[in-house]
């Protein structure tokens, strides 16, 4: 296990095309870090630079106290789980998991001990002789994790490992991942575009946008105090409402709006879409004329709403302010 440091890490493919614009972060030993962002934001590139699959154009990446910029992937003591699992299709589950150990020249008793221990944890014992194609998606995912675990690396790297699973399995694997991290305590970097995965798995997360780290922090801290309008809009579903007010942007989360009498109204929503979800109701509409900002509100399930004017209010403490030009938070 080890700490990981990014020191002003940059990546460009050509002088004009820069994809990572200087990311800095200190990851503590044993921490579970999620790198979150929309597709094309450079999150996978950042992870692949840690793995050694992409070169680092400028800056430093350190694992433990070693700068790994110029080390081969095999010398970095990391293990990676790929989005498509990248299992070797012509090898059995056992051979898949032991491939790296055999290359490192471990004794066969040591190898079978480690593989069996990992198979035990991941409930793969009865599949050890099977080929990957004879396994379900969730089982393949576990084999991919098993292959990472047996190596006992300093850092686990996950590149969107859950995005090929169906919704139900994804929830289950999320829980298993959490349990696994609690058990092994290995420093982990997890890339995803799914904010629910990020919120539930991360001890801290990096929200990335267009090659920059927009905000780094604990999930709830980021949810409570988004640093930019991008983060405010990316995290939370529906995202935070951003309403122009006095040359600034007023941010208010949908769940912080509550219906009130017309005389107390702080906002009046012209409702055009109502989505009852059972536990609560989502209400969408405009404030003022058609061209103005769209607003969403999350109301309790028993609220009586209908299309037309809806008066809502909010507690002043729940308001966020952002600079309209830069999108930065104003405190």
């Amino acid at each position, binding site marked *: 296990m080890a700490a990981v440091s990014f020191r002003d890490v940059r990546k460009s493919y050509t002088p004009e095309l820069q994809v990572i614009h200087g990311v800095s972060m200190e990851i503590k030993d044993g921490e579970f870090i999620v790198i979150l962002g929309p597709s094309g934001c450079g999150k996978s590139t950042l992870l692949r630079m840690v793995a*050694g699959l992409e070169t680092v154009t400028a800056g430093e990446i350190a694992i433990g106290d070693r700068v790994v910029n110029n080390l081969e*992937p095999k010398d970095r003591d990391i293990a*990676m789980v790929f*989005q498509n699992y*990248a299992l070797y299709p012509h090898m059995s589950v056992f051979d898949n998991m032991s*491939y*790296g150990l055999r*290359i490192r020249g471990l004794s066969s008793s040591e190898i079978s001990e480690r593989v069996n221990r990992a198979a035990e944890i991941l409930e793969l014992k009865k599949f050890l002789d099977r080929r990957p*194609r004879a396994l379900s998606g969730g089982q393949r995912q576990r084999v991919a994790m098993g292959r990472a675990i047996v190596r006992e690396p300093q850092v686990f790297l996950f590149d969107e490992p859950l995005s090929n699973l169906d919704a139900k399995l994804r929830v289950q694997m999320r829980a298993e991942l959490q349990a696994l991290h609690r058990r092994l305590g290995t420093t982990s970097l997890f890339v995803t575009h799914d904010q629910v995965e990020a919120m539930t798995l991360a001890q801290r997360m990096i929200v990335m946008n267009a090659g920059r780290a927009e905000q780094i922090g604990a999930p709830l801290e980021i949810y409570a105090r988004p640093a930019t309008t991008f983060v405010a809009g990316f995290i939370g579903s529906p995202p935070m409402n951003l309403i122009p007010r006095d040359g600034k942007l007023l941010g208010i989360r949908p769940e912080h709006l509550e219906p009130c009498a017309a005389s107390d109204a702080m906002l009046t929503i012209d409702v055009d879409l109502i989505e009852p979800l059972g536990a609560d109701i989502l209400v969408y509409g405009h404030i003022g004329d058609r061209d103005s900002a769209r607003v969403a509100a999350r109301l309790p399930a028993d609220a009586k709403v209908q299309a037309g004017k809806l008066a809502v209010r909010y507690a002043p403490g729940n308001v966020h302010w952002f600079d309209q030009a830069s999108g930065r938070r104003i405190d």
Partner: protein
Amino acid sequence: MEKRVVFRSAWLPYVLVAPQIVITILFFFWPAVQAVWFSFQLQDAFGLKTQFVGLQNFTALFKDGNYLESFKVTALFSVLVAFSGLAVSLLFATMADRVVRGALAYKTLLIWPYAVAPAIAGVLWAFLFAPSIGIVTYVLKGMGVDWNWIIKGDQAMLLVVIASVWKQISYNFLFFFAGLQSIPKSLIEAAAIDGAGPLRRFWTIVFPLLSPTTFFLLVVNIVYAFFDTFGVIDATTQGGPGQATNILVYKVYHDGVKAADLGGSSAQSVILMVIVIALTVVQFRFVERRVQY
């Protein structure tokens, strides 16, 4: 799900396939049946008398030292062509797979030899290696090698192997290249992270995943070496010197057309037919059923 086209007319589908069937019957089945028929007969040199001799043509063949020698030559030739052809093309395909810039140019150049007719390929290499005027011969002489395939059997064999392999590289290259491209990059990356160096990655990951392609190409190349190399042989060594490059398919032509032994030549082509049928069965049985990863 199978898609079926249903014709309302009873005769239209037959009319549509008729040209293909007529050509197949005229140029494939009829000669094949004729060959079988002739293989049971003995004809005099002027074609005046024909006598039914049963299997005597076949028994005579297997007692004929020349024919058995030709079998050995063919075996050696096809093994050399198939293995060196596959090895060289696999090497080229792996190298082309790594190229990022100008990949299309390399691919196009590598595919060109396929458009050259076998006889022309043969002539080209025969010129390059010609004992008196060949440029390669000149270079070899400079290196102290006495090169004269006209009189040296093993050199003649080497020449026809080189010409045949050169001709077939494009075909093999295309299949290997497509096979390499279909291996997910993440597999190679996973192996790299697992600690495997480039050579080890190739032999433990890439090569096994290519094995369906390799097996398919092996069969195709053996068939090629057996049959399609006629042009190369005829344009260069014509089976010589002695019997050094007299492969089975060339011997069929030589015995039938030049030596006017129609019955014996037919018997040989019947044996070749059996071989190609066997290879086709192997192809369908094993290649088609191979599991695709």
